[in-house]
């Protein structure tokens, strides 16, 4: 079957999709977006967390056919999604349910992730990297990334929580991220990162 949907603001078509394929498989193997991770493929670890019409879901538990005509945001589009949100009053797509006043559906739909470029991990003076979202930068700065396999799912989940709850308590953070397993860090630096992102967000830095 053919599945047509929007990923990171861009229309995508996947052909010859077998009906049993998950959204995760289509993203990773058919659309060249392997950022969403395949740690358990049974909805337990949260590594494949994406936004489906604004709602965080495990992409491994979503049948590909279910996303027909819908909006998906993955870690690859997170930086631009966050940028769009801050420009658009709190919501990057009209679908997330908390859009601020003045963001029209059309304006929200204008959002489109830019293509990724550098593979060096750091920009140079002549070729600056796409700016990271606050939560992405905070994960790096706080040392919340070790092997990094849980990171994409945690970033999408944490970003969604900060969208809903810009000043979370530690208990709020733990509750919101309890569906995302990490085996390397012991979570302490993930908490640090989310606190850091929240603080930077509230101070406008």
């Amino acid at each position, binding site marked *: 079957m053919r599945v047509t949907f929007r990923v990171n603001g861009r229309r995508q078509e996947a052909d010859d999709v077998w009906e049993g394929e998950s959204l995760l498989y289509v993203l990773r193997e058919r659309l060249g977006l392997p950022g969403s991770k395949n740690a358990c493929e049974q909805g*337990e670890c949260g590594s494949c967390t994406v936004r489906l019409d604004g709602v965080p879901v495990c992409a491994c538990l979503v049948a590909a056919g279910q996303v027909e005509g819908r909006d998906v945001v993955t870690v690859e589009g997170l930086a631009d999604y966050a940028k769009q949100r801050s420009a658009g009053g709190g919501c990057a797509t009209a679908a997330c349910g908390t859009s601020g006043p003045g963001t029209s559906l059309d304006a929200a739909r204008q959002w489109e992730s830019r293509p990724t470029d550098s593979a060096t991990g*750091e920009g140079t003076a002549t070729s600056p990297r796409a700016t990271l979202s606050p939560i992405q930068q905070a994960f790096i700065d706080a040392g919340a990334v070790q092997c*990094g396999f*849980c990171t994409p799912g945690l970033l999408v989940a944490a970003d969604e929580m900060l969208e809903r709850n810009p000043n979370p308590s530690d208990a709020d953070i733990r509750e919101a991220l309890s569906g995302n397993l990490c085996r390397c860090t012991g979570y302490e630096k993930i908490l640090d990162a989310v606190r850091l992102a929240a603080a930077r967000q509230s101070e406008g830095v």
Partner: protein
Amino acid sequence: MGTTGTPTNITQGSRTSGGIGESTLRPDGTLKVTGEFAYSSDMWHEDMLWGHILRSPVAHAEIVSIDTSEALAQPGVYAVMTYDDLPTDVRNYGLEIQDTPVLANGRVRHHGEPVAIVAADHPETARRAAAKIKVEYRELPIVTDEATATAPDAPVLHPGRTDHHAPHAPHPNIVHRQPIVRGDVEEARGRADVIVEGEYVFGMQDQAFLGPESGLAVPAEDGGVDLYIATQWLHADLRQIAPVLGLPEDKVRMTLAGVGGAFGGREDLSMQIHACLLALRTGKPVKIVYNRFESFFGHVHRHPAKLYYEHGATRDGKLTHVKCRIVLDGGAYASSSPAVVGNAASLGAGPYVIDDVDIEVIALYTNNPPCGAMRGFGAVQACFAYEAQMDKLAAKLGMDPVEFRQLNAMEQGSVMPTGQRVDSPAPVAELLRRVKAMPLPPERQWETTEGADVRQLPGGLSNTTHGEGVVRGVGYAVGIKNVGFSEGFDDYSTARVRMEVVGGEPVAVVHTAMAEVGQGGVTVHAQIARTELGVTQVTIQPADTQVGSAGSTSASRQTYVTGGAVKYACELVREKVLEIGRRKFGSYHPAWATAELLLEGGKVVTDGGEALADLTDLLEDEVVEVEEVWRHRPTEPFDLRTGQGNGHVQYSFAAHRAVVEVDTELGLVKVIELACAQDVGKALNPLSVVGQIQGGTTQGLGMAVMEEILVDPRTAKVRNPSFTDYLIPTILDTPTIPVDVLELADEHAPYGLRGVGEAPTLSSTPAVLAAIRAATGLELARTPVRPEHLTGMA
């Protein structure tokens, strides 16, 4: 060539510079937060096939017949291979003992053993085709523990053993036996005023790294194969893969793809050979990705253990002796069982001064899942038991458990049960003092102002208590782990370092085969290069087999050994750079000949701080490159009868204090805080060091209260191969983990550093157990603790 996801150079410099001792950020951090970092399961090739492995549904059976015809006839299937299709006579592999069949040879010895492999154009096609392979099994009796494995009529799992442990193994189903005998335990027992005995059970733990076993094998025009893979040691894989394929090692070109954690679980091969076989058979690239279910069968686990301990002490609290017997279940194949035995034995008395010691450790062959390396490697199981013993002794003596440990703590100069003198700092008593001195979290927080936040109580969001039935306990533990490969192993690493001017700036390029599995080796290599070569920009090249072996990313050894190799190669590069400088500029300034010269801030400077030349002017278009091997001090094997020998190169120590709250009615445990103090010698990257300690601590917490692979003793089948049924700590299960890092230099190690990764995994588990015992008064001789153990229902 149409492959996406192949690793590229990572350059780090202006924004995140920093030498050793600074909390420099990861050079791969940006790639990892944007989703661009390519893990082994992200590899893709335009016309690749998918491999799938058919595994045994039973634990022990003769294979009567295999019929692959129907599978092969499925549309989209390109190849089906069994034992009979293997290309050479080398059909087994293994880290130390080559006892593991690439594909089952007429017999399977454990649940999940690979029997056949399939390549097809879609993973589901491959899976369905594998299901159509008809295998007739004739089941055989199983052995699952010491009694059944060594019974007179026990089936011998590996008849005709020729490995070098076989001659001294007391039974063919015992992989290896290591005694450690020192002093006279019988005599010492006579001096003891109190004696405590204990039998302990340690469950089977899984590494549960999140990135599943996966990789891509691409057949090459020269008849060889390019393999992109997640592993802990490229060259050890290569040594095992090439002979099975019938290829010389230089035709199996391996590149490290992104590794999603390891913790020992990637020391053994998983799908490496299978992917290469299918690629060479079909002439097409083949990708294999395990799902989580298969991952539980696809790697070895931590050895479950039964541990018997007897300790004695005098009335004034001095340990007299220890008698110990540890039985490790190695499962169906040897993996690294012999080395795990050596560790459990040599570290079995813990970080204490005990002159009279009688230890025996064995590892069994059984039909249970194969066990091998996991973070802590034999020292973990022993620490769980000897720390329980310390608490029992302290209680019996009426002493404080921390003071009792401090009274017996080893220190620099102490002698191990192996006779080895500990020749670098061993601050065991100090680490205990530090965790004890940390402020305790406030008690009964649920009774404060706004009432209970159920999220902070046992049972959490299940809302099972608002404080009623909840009691608190505090427990302590300390452990000792070796760093590096032991027992005479030639534990070397190789580094290639190049210095050149790129874009008007001096750049250091570091190339090693070190497996970055998340620990931050790439961060540390860049820091070392900056410190030694005075540059800002460092490029880390992808790890591959085009450079010499780096040894394994295990045994807490990579910062020590490959870090040591990078440092050494940098020193040689620096000498060559200074040589060029002397040649070009020596006549302009006498300091070139007389002063000690350093490279700093892109310049050659004297030790007095005077700049002599810019590196850009000095090098111009010259390229300085060095590839060198570096090794730590040699170690010795343990004597087979007495266990005596200088077997380890370095020891590392950590202590924990656990604070738990237990709902005694429901048997639910909430770990409130898990504080750790660890000596790291020198923290090359303090941020990463703390991250390692917190991560290791959390794996120990999992082992204390939730993690266990359940194997049905009647069938030897794994009952919980999923993250639904095998639980690892979530962010809700994990408490605050304050860390106190001590830096007492080991003069024998580069920069004085001490391996960090494993020690925190040791003492975490027994500290939590001690806290639960303190809260409940229960004996709790097994880990993990489950609710039924706390409510008297087990």
